[in-house]
């Protein structure tokens, strides 16, 4: 069971949260300009890091806010959690997904 620190409410049990996959995947600036390949990247391709991973969580039965976290996908320990809109610490960020 994970103990997750909501940046707004503090540490809470995993069952209060909803997982949202990779963080920092930007919606395409100009959707009409995308090729099929780029659409596929945006919709279906996400990083699958073994190690530190920047991802989204929602405090679903608490404040209901989405926020971001950097978590190790091998040990499952959280390095940090931070509010949506803030950039990832230590340069851990999406390497793909969406247009630059």
């Amino acid at each position, binding site marked *: 069971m994970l103990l997750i620190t909501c940046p707004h409410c503090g540490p809470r049990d995993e069952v209060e949260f909803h997982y949202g996959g990779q963080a920092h995947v930007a919606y395409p600036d100009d959707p009409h300009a995308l090729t099929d390949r780029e659409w596929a990247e945006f919709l279906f391709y*996400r990083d*699958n890091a073994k190690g530190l991973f920047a991802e989204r969580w929602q405090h679903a039965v608490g404040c209901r806010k989405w926020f971001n976290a950097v978590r190790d996908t091998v040990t499952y320990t959280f390095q940090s959690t931070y509010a949506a809109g803030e950039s990832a610490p230590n340069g851990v960020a999406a390497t793909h997904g969406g247009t630059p």
Partner: protein
Amino acid sequence: MAEKLPEHPDFLWRNPDPKSSYDAIIVGGGGHGLATAYYLASQHGMTNIAVLEKGWLGGGNMARNTTIIRSNYLWDESAAIYEHSLKLWEQLPEELDYDFLFSQRGVLNLAHTLQDVRESQRRVNANALNGVDAYFLSPEEVKEVCPIINIGDDIRYPIMGATYQPRAGIAKHDHVAWAFARRCDQLGVDLIQNCEVTGFLKDGDRVVGVETTRGRISAGKVGLAAAGHSSVLAELAGVRLPIQSHPLQALVSELFEPVHPTVVMSNHVHVYVSQAHKGELVMGAGIDSYNGYGQRGAFHVIEEQMAAAVELFPIFARAHVLRTWGGIVDTTLDASPIISDTPVEELYVNCGWGTGGFKGTPASGYTFAHMIATGAAHPLNKSFSLDRFETGHLIDEHGAAAVAH
């Protein structure tokens, strides 16, 4: 009395050192890698080949799964490949000359809501059109197939019916791996354990070998069958895969006299259970929502699964859990596998079987071997290519995949 397990032959396979070069290399010594090597050798006459495994043969998801085999998938593409797999299962014990206790005791997929009922009936009709044995049963008929099940309506999600596939069943998974491994070895395939692939050798856009913890090995063709690690591995070759890896858990009880004659699965309340030949109740749960490689998952997932199991089977309340464990499954967004060529010439991938690839083991190996040997897709795996994520021809099996992912 529980069924007696077959004796192990004392000698199953050699443990050769890797040669400097092979016609083809399969990365991953799980069921899929071993089946691929078996069909490469037996169907395509390719015997100068090796299976490279970072740990021990069959030590990944092959040894961690709940061994359910069935072919009642919704779409034509899936029905075709899983039904082909089931037909191969039916002949493999004789073909491999190894009794791995394939037991066709049937599977019930429960419906607990009106929407479940409609989806199930649709799937039964689709199965019938594809020549897959499938029936829709009323709650009373469910109870005839599985007398210990609770069809009362005083539980949170009462049983409103079920699909039933009589030819479905279970097999002893370790023995399946050993059966393939022994026959591969007899056919001259080198099975190399403790040999992790750490990189790829390329000549321009073409793969020409692999880097391993036991040195460089050149190869004409390379096939990846690394389940939970497929995207990590492919990335080393510069190939990005639409895969997310998640923990999936299972557990077994202590041994009991036979009480549970079939396989029961519920997509809605997330439990699937059968009774192993020795007598353990074998149960699986849903995946943990987060990405992970730790081969363990969260306790609350097991708690939910047990709560559902005890409502469906009140007599389970007295059973003790003996062991829980997790595997890492590689999921795709349409809950269907990928058996495909890649942007790198002569590099092929077989992955994305998610929570349901054990049943696919024979057909996975059969089609992947065809692709590696001939360079072209077999009709059964043509639709399971990587380019479906670009063309939009997805094979959405979330309903029939039966474990939500």
